[in-house]
Structure formats: structure tokens, C-alpha cells
């Protein structure tokens, strides 16, 4: 599986930045026809039987590439995948023909109870095998590769024997899946567990990255009074995350990037300006790379 397969949007001329599609922005998008690389939608929002949700995305799809982001498949579960849900995801993918399909390294369902969140798993030989099996199943059902997103976490597991970057590298190696590098999640997890985010990114299997996510986060603290960031998706991207993004783009080159603002959704112009900032960051990082090469 080559880099080009995962980064198909990156071959479009302009830096490929997208935003999450929110129904409240539909009129503005249709009226103003903004230049954007793609729109991303949450698969579960389109698992109803019909009506306006499908129609709106059909209309968006006519003009823009689509990225499909699942949140409820529970790939990180010890038990078997919910086959009915996998079929629903496949049906949505078939209808919208997205250029990218992604899901999370997390679990959300256990013994028939669905927890409306992305829950963490330990990184062990057992779990790397189980997650890889699930991804094989997903890719077979979809008839295409998927991207697996690195998580934001608030706890680590005592029994983990793998570093998260090695865990993701191994899954990509075993299954041929790509990775969705959520740079904000790297920042959040780094603060929460006290590691160096630059070190994490240096260890990250960048050759497997097919998409990047950038999102806002909220500040809190733990029992010991140490800082805890929450992956809230409810605010602009923070400056440290923009720095990490610039570093990543300098190494990776232009990569499809999503501005992920799902809660307290802002007015359309605000969301669009975040996308424009990402576009400028790609141009700046690319220009700097050239200058360095000239000097060398």
C-alpha cells in the first residue's frame, strides 16, 4: 500500500484542507460555493432511512470530495464487531462514495451497551491482534482501505506493553490500513501523560498517514492538580497544535487536513477562516522546506 493510495486528495493542485459538514452551514455553502478540498461527515448521522440529511450530503457531494468518519464501530472492542453496524457503514460509504473513510482506535460498545464516547484500550500483543482482525473485517466489508485515528486519552493502562506509535505502526503493517493523524489528540495526550509531543510525532509512522485532524481542546486538571486537556472539539485550534502541525507538514508534505469543530459550532465564516489558516500553514511549511533545501 503506497503513500499515494492514502493521500489521493494530496494530488489535487491546491493544499487540500476540509471542514466538518454541519447542517446549519448548508445554505452558506450552497450560496457561496467556497473553495475547499473536501467535507467530512460523521457516518452515524447518515444512518437514518432518508430525508433531509441524505439529500444535503448528496448536494455537497456533487461539488466536493467527501470524507466519511465513523464514530460508533467500536474497533477497539475485545468482542466481535457489530456486523449490522458495519453493514450500515458500508451502505453509507456506498451511497456517498467518499475518497477517505476513517474510524477510531477506541471502543464504545460493550456487551450490548453503547457508551456515547471513545474509550481507551490497553496496548498489548492481544489487543494489537484483535484490533488488526477488526480492521481486516472492516476493509473487507468496505472493499477499500480505511484510516485509523490515534486517540486522545486521559488514562493509560498498567498492562500496556506497546508504545502507542509502535502499536499504530504494527496495525498499519498487518492490515495495510492508513492512519489518520489527529495532531490535537497528540497534544492532548502529551499534556495528559507528560510526554513530548515532538518525540511522539518523530516516532509516528508518517508514511501511513492519509489525513490529519486539527481541533480545539478544553483545559482541566486531575486529582494531583496536574493539567488535563479535554478533546472537546468546541473551539479554535490552539497555537501549540498549529506548531506541531507545521512540523508535521514539513516532514509529510501537503496532506488532506480537516478542521474538526463539532461542538458549539461557530458561524460559517469562523470555521472557514480556520481552514484558510491551515492552508496558509501548508504553504508556509512547504516554502520553508524549499528554502532550507536551497541553503543546503
Amino acid at each position: 500500500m503506497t503513500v499515494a493510495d492514502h493521500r489521493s486528495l494530496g494530488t489535487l493542485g491546491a493544499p487540500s484542507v476540509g471542514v466538518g459538514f454541519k447542517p446549519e452551514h448548508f445554505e452558506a455553502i450552497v450560496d457561496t460555493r467556497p473553495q475547499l478540498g473536501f467535507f467530512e461527515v460523521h457516518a452515524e448521522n447518515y444512518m437514518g432511512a432518508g430525508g433531509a440529511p441524505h439529500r444535503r450530503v448528496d448536494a455537497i457531494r456533487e461539488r466536493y470530495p467527501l470524507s466519511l468518519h465513523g464514530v460508533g464501530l467500536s474497533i477497539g472492542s475485545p468482542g466481535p464487531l457489530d456486523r449490522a453496524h458495519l453493514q450500515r457503514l458500508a451502505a453509507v460509504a456506498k451511497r456517498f462514495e467518499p475518497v477517505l473513510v476513517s474510524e477510531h482506535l477506541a471502543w464504545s460498545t460493550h456487551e450490548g451497551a453503547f457508551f456515547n464516547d471513545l474509550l481507551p484500550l490497553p496496548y498489548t500483543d492481544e489487543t494489537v491482534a484483535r484490533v488488526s482482525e477488526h480492521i481486516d473485517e472492516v476493509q473487507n466489508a468496505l472493499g477499500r482501505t480505511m484510516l485509523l485515528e490515534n486517540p486522545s486519552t486521559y488514562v493509560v493502562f498498567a498492562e500496556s506493553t506497546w508504545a502507542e506509535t509502535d502499536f499504530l505502526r504494527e496495525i498499519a503493517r498487518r492490515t495495510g490500513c492508513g492512519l489518520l493523524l489527529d495532531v490535537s489528540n497528540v497534544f492532548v495526550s502529551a499534556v495528559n501523560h507528560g510526554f513530548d509531543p515532538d518525540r511522539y510525532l518523530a516516532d509516528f509512522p508518517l508514511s501511513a498517514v492519509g489525513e490529519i485532524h486539527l481541533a480545539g481542546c478544553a483545559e482541566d486538571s486531575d486529582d494531583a492538580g496536574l493539567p488535563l486537556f479535554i478533546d472537546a472539539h468546541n473551539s479554535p485550534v490552539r497555537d501549540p497544535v498549529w506548531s506541531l502541525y507545521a512540523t508535521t507538514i514539513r516532514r509529510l508534505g501537503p496532506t488532506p487536513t480537516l478542521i474538526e469543530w463539532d461542538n458549539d459550532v461557530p458561524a460559517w465564516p469562523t470555521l472557514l477562516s480556520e481552514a484558510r489558516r491551515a492552508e496558509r500553514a501548508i504553504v508556509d511549511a512547504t516554502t520553508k522546506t524549499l528554502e532550507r533545501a536551497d541553503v543546503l
Partner: protein
Amino acid sequence: MSFETTVGAFAAALGEPSAPPPAMTHGRMGAPDARRFAVYRNNVTVGLIGALEARYPVSRRIVGDDFFRAIARIYVSAHRPRSPLMVAYGDDFPDFIAARISEVQAEPSLDYLPDVARLENAWVEAYHAEDALVATIDEIAALSADQLPETRIAFHPAVRLLRLVTPAASIWASHQGDAEPSAPTHWIGEDALLTRPDCDVKVRVLPPLAYDFALRLREDATLIEAALALNDPAFDLGTHLVGLVESGAVASIIPGQTS
């Protein structure tokens, strides 16, 4: 500890608000941390409350954000989703409100709230229902007088019929848009018809007898069977049929056999 055991312990602690964080989940001090684990519990609760707020915006406006969040919190702690398909989550919230309303003696003025919530739930169901083409008036006009009595109706999948004991449909309607809502002029029950011929859900208050007529047709009665069951010589079958078709409720007309 096996993968299954770890996740099982995590899930058990998540579902039990007073439980300590699971022993194998650590913060930076190499030990369990209650505030860290609470982030996950909080995400679950806030997410589910958010789903109810999105599903019942008028009910929320009527009782206010704080009161709504309080009732929602109680509902959420007792009603865990059984599926990642969240489109139906909270569909029994109106019954939950109805049970609670009868407990709260101090709020007789909120007796319309369960009806408003039922309408909002029906609206969401109609919104997500399958698409279908709708029958036109031309198709009725094409029926001969012979065919009409034995004709049957297939309803559009989005159709919802509600018999409300309070004027909740009018109350709901007056909460659409930003204007200050007004109280209904007549405090009587309303029969509501929800349709979605295209993308937008339409809510109508039905005239007398229309609800019972539509209900029988939906139970596969012929036009004449449904009309006769009303036992009212003044009932105008043609007018009511046209009303149903014009509202976008009818997907297809199945003509009766001519005798």
C-alpha cells in the same frame, strides 16, 4: 489481565457513578485518578443529554435549560443506548416526562408538556423516514365513481398521526421561529398529522373525524369502510381524501375493483 476483563471493568465503572476508577487505569502518578476517569463518565452523560436537547428543543424552551437538563440527567442515568445508532435515542422520553409530571403536583400548568414532547419525537421520526414519491390529485381524479369505494391508500413512510389531549400542536407551532410564543385561544385536544412529502416536515391540526378516518385507512380499510366506521352522514369522503393527498400523506392510491 485479559483484554475482555479490562474493558469489562472499565465499562462497569463507567456505568456506576459512585464506583472508583478501575485499578488498571492510571494517571501520571502511576495510580488510578478519579478526575481523569470522570472525564469519560462526563462525556457519556453530556453527550446523551445533548441528544435529548437536540431532539426536544421546544420542550426545552418551555421548561428552561436548567430544568430540562435536570430531567434529562435522570432519564440518561436510567436509559442507556443499546445501539450506536443514536437516531432513535430518547424516543420514550415523552412517556418518561408524563410519568414525572404526575408526580410534580406543583406544575399543573405543564400538563401539555408530554404532548409537546410526543409531537417533537414524531417530528424527528418523520424527518428521518424513508423517501417516497407522493400521489397527486390527478390520481384521485382518474378514479371512476365505481372504483372509489373499494380504493385503499398506502401512506408515505414519514406519516405520523397523533391524538393529543391538549392543544400541543398549536403550542409547538407558536414556538417555531423567534417570536414570543402565544397561548392557544381554545384549550382543547388536537389531532395532528405529520407529513414529509419532500425534505421538510409539515405539521397540521386535523379537522374532526379526519384522524379516525386516516387511522382506519392506515389499517388497510377501503375508503368506504373507513368512512362508514365514522357513523356520521355529514362526513365528506372526497374532501378528506383530497386533504390527505394535498398534505403529502399518500404514497400511492390502490384503486378498487369495479363491480
